[in-house]
């Protein structure tokens, strides 16, 4: 039975990765009952994790998978192309989707009216479709289409927040995001003009023959700005703090760990596979520019985070800083630096998603994410707050947590490039993370809750489970690094070596 099924779909796994969430999203709309829609979404999300794991295993053992959609030969048809780089990103995205989904029903119960829950699940799955599609497609125009699918659904998800400011944040993100998407479209158009192809591999070959000219440079600039907006690289990050602060708690956890990570993947893909590294970074000072912006983001994000009263906003600014680390890793353009950037995609996704789920627990019980709500939380919600502390340690980069692994590679990369000041700056900005995490820890353990405070129960089990899966992940992958750093460094070697 399983063998027969395997023979039937075994080769079509890449297509199923996109088709399944797209179809189940419509199923969610049809069934309408909240718990049934949730069950459908859960089935699909965990199926996607299994699927992504199989794909990663196959890529690891047998090399790049090329799936030709509809049987049209490459480069005319649309290709799904999975190598080590996007197999890893795909696994991150689907796992985060699935783990967050466990916590969703309890968390949205008091944020979104019950009759709209099925639509929430449908939109959530559509967002997952777009993100998975962006990750595994080998076609430039497809990237744009999937980008817009994921963006449109994320605007809708953000606008579901409890306060009316969710709406203004959503429209702000929509305007910025659409500008970004359109710039990407423009860049892809110029590349198509120069190369006559939309297939990324073919495009790279044509560009290598063509060399640099003005149209290619403008295309690069358009793509850089467009992806920069979606990635929220400093100073194009202005949409991010509001969107993360006012979105429903689980949506923040989901988007913080997936949307910007996939944008980072697209940036890496264009920089290293399509334009090839020498063209992107050496010829145009793009590397120096990205490094400056990354370092500025590291400090600006962390410094602003220190002064936030709303902890959700604090973590949102911390995300801006973490994106800075990833961008620095990319701009170093050596094996260790890029490994650091890629492994930080994995590590930051796990850490930040866990932390935002902690905030989902807090907002469920305390109805607020302000610093004052954390008073005495270490005793009132011990499991939740312990998760916050561990996640915070990982954000700082303490050894035995995942944050340490990525910073280790980033510092190594900076030293390999002979840029020891960058290494020092990376360590310095970690100290800033220590400050903003410590503020919360101090209030949580050493401040007594207000006298008239009501008894609060610990967060519900479903939410604690998904939080602790992720926080446990920060510890497990901080010690056992062959999945994250192993795959990331192999992917970095592949990209730097120019073998695609």
């Amino acid at each position, binding site marked *: 039975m399983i063998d027969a099924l395997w023979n039937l779909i075994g080769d079509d796994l890449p297509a199923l990765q996109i088709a399944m969430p797209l179809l189940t999203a419509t199923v969610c709309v049809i069934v309408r009952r909240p718990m049934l829609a949730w069950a459908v979404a859960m089935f699909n999300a965990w199926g996607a994790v299994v699927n992504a794991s199989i794909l990663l295993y196959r890529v690891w053992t047998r090399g790049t998978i090329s799936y030709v959609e509809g049987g049209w030969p490459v480069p005319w048809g649309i290709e799904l192309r999975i190598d080590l780089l996007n197999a890893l990103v795909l696994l991150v995205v689907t796992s985060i989707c699935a783990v967050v989904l466990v916590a969703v029903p309890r968390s949205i119960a008091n944020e979104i009216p019950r009759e709209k829950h099925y639509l929430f699940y449908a939109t959530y799955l559509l967002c997952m479709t777009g993100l998975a599609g962006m990750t595994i497609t080998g076609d430039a125009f497809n990237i744009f*289409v999937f980008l817009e699918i994921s963006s449109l659904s994320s605007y809708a998800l953000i606008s579901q927040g409890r306060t009316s400011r969710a709406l*203004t944040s*959503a*429209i702000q993100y929509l305007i910025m995001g659409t500008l970004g998407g359109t710039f990407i479209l423009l860049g892809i*158009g110029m590349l198509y003009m120069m190369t006559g192809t939309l297939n990324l591999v073919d495009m790279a070959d044509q560009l290598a023959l063509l060399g640099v000219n003005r149209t290619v440079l403008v295309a690069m600039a358009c793509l850089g700005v467009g992806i920069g907006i979606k990635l929220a690289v400093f100073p194009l990050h202005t949409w991010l703090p509001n969107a993360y602060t006012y979105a429903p708690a689980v949506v923040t956890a989901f988007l913080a760990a997936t949307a910007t990570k996939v944008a980072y993947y697209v940036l890496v893909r264009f920089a290293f596979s399509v334009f090839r590294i020498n063209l992107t970074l050496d010829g145009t000072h793009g590397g120096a520019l990205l490094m400056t912006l990354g370092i500025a983001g590291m400090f600006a994000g962390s410094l602003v985070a220190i002064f*936030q*009263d709303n902890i959700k*906003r604090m973590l949102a600014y911390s995300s801006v800083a973490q994106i800075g680390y990833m961008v620095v890793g990319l701009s170093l353009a050596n094996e260790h630096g890029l490994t650091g950037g890629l492994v930080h995609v994995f590590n930051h996704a796990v850490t930040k998603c866990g932390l935002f789920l902690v905030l989902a627990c807090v907002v469920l019980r305390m109805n607020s994410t302000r610093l004052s709500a954390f008073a005495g939380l270490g005793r009132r919600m011990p499991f939740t707050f312990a998760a916050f502390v561990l996640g915070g340690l990982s954000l700082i980069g303490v050894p035995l947590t995942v944050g340490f692994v990525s910073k280790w590679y980033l510092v190594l990369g900076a030293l390999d490039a002979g840029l020891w000041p960058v290494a020092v700056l990376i360590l310095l900005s970690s100290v800033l993370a220590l400050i903003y995490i410590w503020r919360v820890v101090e209030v949580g353990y050493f401040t007594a809750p207000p006298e008239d405070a009501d008894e609060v129960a610990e967060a519900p089990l479903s939410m604690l489970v998904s939080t602790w899966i992720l926080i446990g992940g920060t510890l497990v992958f901080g010690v056992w690094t062959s999945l994250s750093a192993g795959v990331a460094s192999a992917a970095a070697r592949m990209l730097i070596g120019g073998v695609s």
Partner: protein
Amino acid sequence: MIEWGLYNYWVVIFLMMTGLYVVISRGNLIKKIIGLNIFQVSVIMFYVSMGKVRGGTAPIDAPGFEIYSNPLPHVLMLTAIVVGVATTALALAIVVRIGEEYGTIEEDKIREIEAEEHPN
């Protein structure tokens, strides 16, 4: 020296900058969305004019026609138009909700109301 043979690209750039300027300078959310639309349309025009081959006909295999326009960019733009419509629809829906919640769709007034309600 401006090459007038490529005037279509000048039109595209003019439209694009108009759209971008409207998005940045206007405080009314509906006007911002109109600016966004102009911006998107300029890129659609860019693709469409890129696929046109001078003297070419529609790409249908028929005797007597040798030169065809490139249909691919035109087909791509069908998708981009759909994306644009979806974005506009969602944006308008959110603006309607903002109008209901705040009683205004002027950005500076919204900001004033937000500053009063939530100091952070």
